[in-house]
């Protein structure tokens, strides 16, 4: 929840002071989460927490939708290790292409590249490496917390804040020899802080995004 200097209620005053304490302690932005698209606000009510890693399994569209929220809000985003990233679909989700940077092949130096990207970009989407030592993941996690950036991993990740698992797709618009794909619904299973819940999400129909309203309501 963002601090609101104008309001005078004791609760917000406390939030405000806490934010200032955080700021002085050098925990920049830790009080301010990154927004998500309205279609995803039900499953991630607090938005994306800066400094956290999220694991996404089974859907590139879901990863794009998660990138779109911060990108629409003016953040720079990075994509690493995904040479098949569909740029037009990304633009369709509302990702600003002029604030998007791709590293299609990080090569063998996966962790240093992701760390270097996380240093300067607010959100980094990466394909999970083949194997990663827990110590290395912890070091990267510390780096993320220090820089307050979000890591979205396509695949399993040892220390993730939430796991978004796509179990299936529901398609509409296509028939037997006619029509075209028009609507996509994801069968989603979200494991967030120990609790797991299922939801059905329509990403294609996220509609015009009113982020200002979203921020107020978050």
């Amino acid at each position: 929840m963002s601090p609101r200097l104008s309001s005078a209620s004791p609760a917000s005053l406390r939030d405000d002071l806490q934010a200032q304490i955080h700021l002085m302690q050098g925990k920049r932005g830790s009080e301010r989460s990154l927004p998500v698209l309205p279609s995803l606000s039900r499953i991630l009510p607090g938005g994306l927490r800066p400094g956290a890693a999220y694991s996404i399994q089974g859907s590139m569209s879901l990863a794009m939708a998660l990138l779109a929220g911060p990108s629409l809000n003016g953040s720079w985003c990075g994509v690493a290790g995904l040479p098949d990233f569909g740029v037009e679909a990304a633009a369709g989700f509302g990702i600003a292409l002029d604030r998007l940077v791709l590293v299609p092949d990080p090569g063998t130096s996966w962790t240093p590249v992701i760390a270097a990207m996380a240093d300067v970009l607010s959100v980094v989407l990466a394909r999970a490496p083949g194997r990663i030592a827990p110590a290395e993941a912890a070091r990267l996690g510390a780096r993320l917390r220090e820089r307050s950036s979000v890591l979205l991993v396509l695949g399993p990740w040892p220390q993730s804040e939430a796991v978004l698992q796509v179990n299936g797709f529901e398609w509409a618009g296509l028939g037997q020899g006619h029509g075209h794909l028009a609507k996509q619904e994801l069968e989603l299973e979200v494991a967030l802080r120990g609790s797991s819940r299922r939801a059905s999400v329509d990403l294609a129909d996220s509609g015009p995004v009113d982020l200002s309203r979203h921020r107020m309501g978050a």
Partner: protein
Amino acid sequence: MMLFQLETPVRALVTWFPDWPLVAARLADALPPDVPAAVIGQGVIAACSAEARAEGVVRGLRLREAQTRCPELVVCAVDPVRDAREFEPVVSSLEERTPGVEVLRPGLCAIRAKGAARYYGGEEAAAGAVLESADSLGVEARVGIADSVFAAEQAARSTSELSAVLVLPPGSSRDFLTPFPVGVLGQPKLASLLKRLGILTLGNFANLPAADVRARFGAAGITAHALASGQDPRKVIPRTPPRKLDQRAEFEPGLDRVDQLAFQLRATADAFVAGVQTESLVCTELRVLITDEAGSRSERTWGHPRHFTASDVVDRVRWQLQSQPLAQGRMPDGGTHDGGMARGGLSSPVTRVEFVPVRVDSIAHHGRALFGDGAEEQIHHGLSRIQSMLGHEAVVVPAISGGRLLAERRRLVPWGDALPAGAAALASRPWPGRIPDPQPATVFASLIPVLLLDADKEKVRTDHRGGLIAPPMWFCPGGDPARRRLVAQWAGPWPLKQRWWDADHRLEADRFQLVDGNGEAWLLLLDEQNWWAEARYD
């Protein structure tokens, strides 16, 4: 005091380099030597080589006609920037022997004859010195000396290969110009009018009284009249040789390791950046030329989102060497290098590296803000660091371009380079056959072979009218018929036909959308024979 008389023109020495656009193209390796070659501007021959001329190709001929006369003609497009760039060393070499050169245009320059003649002891000797200087660079030159720049240019143009110098004695320029047609004045409108009035030669035109010419043809006419009378009012205005901003480093013996080279180049790069800065400029676009021992040349222009610092310059050299071995140029043994170069190694030791600023900007536009330039600069530093780890092309910025295949529509531009001109305009064109939204999230960088089978487990085909022979039943994502999935829903074929006339870019295929039994949605492509997966909706 005769204030109102036209100033007497000074004697001028004009040097003409025949077929300069062609010579420049050959110097820049855009055209091979010793074959019939021509430079094309707006569909007609702008300059051609002696070999092509022997086959009957002349200036002004249409390209198609020229190729009929000489089928093995090699052509390249005219490029004024290249002409000027390649002329620069010629002018500098000329300036070393006879200072005070005025460049009339690339391939033509003028010098005041008086000083040079006195120094070399005669006008012929001065002309000889000019020819020698051109000869030392291996380019052909012709020299004309006359009372005015215009007359000297005509004199130079009327020389032949055997007698490359023509000196008109003082006072004879007007008589020399008499038989030339009015076309040489370089004013097509005036020339056409004069011809219709029956004035065909410069002599006829010069004989008209100056006052009448002014009354009938105005200011342009009086200038042309002065030219025709051998009284070119133009003076030779020597250029101030530009301060050299480019820097070069030579290595003897050549260096064959990139890290050695980077270390050695550091001082040159520092000098380059400092030299640009002393002119209150910064370099935003840089050309790096690398020459190796085998004589091949690698040339590349690098952009920079801000401006080049010394370490950026060294990085560019490293990337250029790592991205391509020096195999594009002429190989002395006639062989070609396969790309088997070790990363960071070179195919042949580097003997020379040159830095040329292509685009500079005032340093005032690039000043640092008092409290730092904020996020964008940080991002640039971070991404440049990744580039220096992985190479220039490893960090890219995406853009949507035009095309029918999805992979074509995705344009990836290295961080720091400008988007190619016209990409945005290409993207905004309608592109019939574009697949309807939503677009697939996974677009395979290269097509993946798959199989689509009908109920009889035969490959699904289209007939000659573009319809399906049998509806699809089974889908094999790996291309292996044993591991097949049922087709749940499908649509197609959506024909995709383009550029049947162009062998390299022609495309004749059918698109299908498909949802398989596992609920995965695919975009498939059927060319003449095979099934491919173009993209996946996931």
